[in-house]
């Protein structure tokens, strides 16, 4: 732990990696240093830190999401590593991610949506929740878009998508219709089955 305060960035990075590997559940104090290491070329441990983040990330989803929200000016490498760690968390990360998208992380919908897409079917119920319950029509739109991108794995979202087609917002109706066409191949497509 003491090494996390070392003036030598390499020693700090080693300490962060060590703590994350040895005790992933208690690695919270090491996460900021681990994230810094990911884009510190002069330390030379970028790949190792990104690998360890995938190992430890699933246990610290809320903290990773908070980092994404707070550090707006983040390198693509660091952002990519966090996204991979969230992806590694799988279904367990879905609810916090959707909560973040509907809360302080609205500006991150692109990145977080990408993670949800890659998680796939387990993310569908929460995205449907966003489509149905979210008051912000832009997020509803985005939820419909995501479900459409998921394709047939989001079949369980069809009732919610069909419900969205009766919305007063023309954009949402368009997005929901497009999503239905992708989730249920053939539906609404000329000449389809």
């Amino acid at each position, binding site marked *: 732990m003491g090494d996390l305060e070392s*003036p*030598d*960035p*390499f*020693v700090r*990075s*080693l*300490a962060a*990696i*060590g703590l994350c*590997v*040895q005790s992933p559940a208690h690695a919270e104090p090491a996460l900021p240093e681990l994230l810094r290491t990911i*884009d510190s*070329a*002069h*330390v*030379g*441990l970028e790949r*190792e830190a990104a*690998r*360890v983040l995938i190992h430890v990330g699933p246990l610290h989803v809320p903290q990773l999401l908070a980092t994404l929200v707070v550090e707006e*000016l*983040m*390198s*693509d*490498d660091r952002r990519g590593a966090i996204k991979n760690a969230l992806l590694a968390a799988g279904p367990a990360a879905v609810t916090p991610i959707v909560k973040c998208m509907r809360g302080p992380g609205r500006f991150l919908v692109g990145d977080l949506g990408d993670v949800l897409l890659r998680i796939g079917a387990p993310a569908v119920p929460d995205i449907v929740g966003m489509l149905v319950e979210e008051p912000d029509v832009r997020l509803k739109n985005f939820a419909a878009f995501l479900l459409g991108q998921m394709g047939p794995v989001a079949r369980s979202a069809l009732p919610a998508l069909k419900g969205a087609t009766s919305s007063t917002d023309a954009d949402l109706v368009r997005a929901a219709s497009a999503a239905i066409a992708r989730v249920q191949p053939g539906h609404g497509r000329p000449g389809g089955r």
Partner: protein
Amino acid sequence: MGKIKTHQTSNRLPGRASLLTPVLLVLGMGIGVRALMLALSHRVPLLVILGPRFHMTAVGLAVGLLLLLRASIFELRELRDGGARSSSAASLRSVFVVAILGWLLFLWLIQPFQRIWFDMVLGGAAGAWAGLLLIQRARGERHARLLRWIDILAFGICAALLSLELGLRLWATVRPAPLNATVGAGPGELVRRFRCDPGQVRFGFACNSRGFYDTEFYRNEPGDDGPLIVAIGDSFNVGTVPHAWHFTSICEELTGARIYNMGVPGIGPPEYLSLLVDEALPMDPDLILIGVFIGNDLDIDEYLADLPDAALRSWFQRDQVLLSVIPERMSRIAVERLRAERRGADVGTVQGERSVVESMDRDEAAAAFPWLTDTGLEEATLSEDAFYRLETERALATCAQVPPSFDVFCEAMLAARRAAGDTPVHVMLIPDEFQVEDDLWMRVTESAGRELDRNRPQDLLTAWLGQQGIPYLDLLPVLRRVDPQPDGRRHLYHALDTHFNARGNQVTAEALAEFLD
């Protein structure tokens, strides 16, 4: 060699000098133990970093320690018995050779420098030295002559390499030049190395006594004509056009202000700050304009300044060692020279830069350098390969992510504003050519192989500058507004050069004049 010597000295009484080898071995054991402890205490992260190589490293250090122990016992026993012992000179020679080989190995394979790697390599080198001593003892009698030759040859080569590095460092101190600059050089040092020579003639115009591509500078005094503006910048301020065609000269005419052009090629934000404090503020200007080039001012190697073990780093980090830096630079120059020879141009100089020595006004310059008014006559400064490689590297550094030195830039600008006090500091953002010429952008994005955001640097910088209340002129929209010529290019940058040509200087000067008004 120890054995050879020992035959000659075996009847000698043990003296102070002959204790050297055992003392060095005991010292080596201390180093070896420390290295092994270090490796074991960091075994978890090192296993992540090194994988199976960690076990090999740990075993290697342990073996080295055993060798040190064995050699120490051997030497101490010999010392007690008054028998055969290594001579002090031979011991020092072998220590020196192992140290230099370790140094070279480190520079070649273990980069960037980190203290823990250094300590482990030191432990390994101590073990290797002990092994060498034991081999010499075992083989000494049978291969005495051969070993002695190897000993002398290895020592000679290692001494020559060290002398060469020391000589290069001395040269760099006495005659600082871009060729011998290293990454860690401080801002003031970089300005000193890269600025033009006083009186150096470029396009028929002699640099002033301070080495700036402008007329002589005088301190601003009450009653002087017009406001005094000091323009600080890099090679864009030095320019690739005759003085009368440079944007600062044109802007002077358009605004009636005096603009002192303090340009030094190859510098960045920390050096701008140094120039501002050391050379601009003493002029007591009415305004300071800092030109920030997007292409390389946001990707600078300033980080070394704050890292620990600076002295060790200066010897063990490859980009700090002149023996490594200079040949690499020279080979690049040689390649470019070869390409330039095929084209019949100077290397690293702009078309016609050194061809005229007489002072010229704007019209005379236009007659002497017809490419000023006809971009079709421009000759390339760099080879195509070098140019596209450079542009791709710059795009990757600035448009693929938050630029690596964005924080350094912000700190330097805030420090500049603090240092300037009441004197206003304004910033001019100079886009890279790939942001202005569409065909170049397409080529760069193809070579980059990843998604790039063409406007990202300006988006970040303008947002930050606006937030800080620092007035800025963003030249990107200005240059993009210029109508393309029939070939689809705007032709604002000299051919394969990365700097403004006459058209680029004219457009910049007009925008700057409007901004300053």
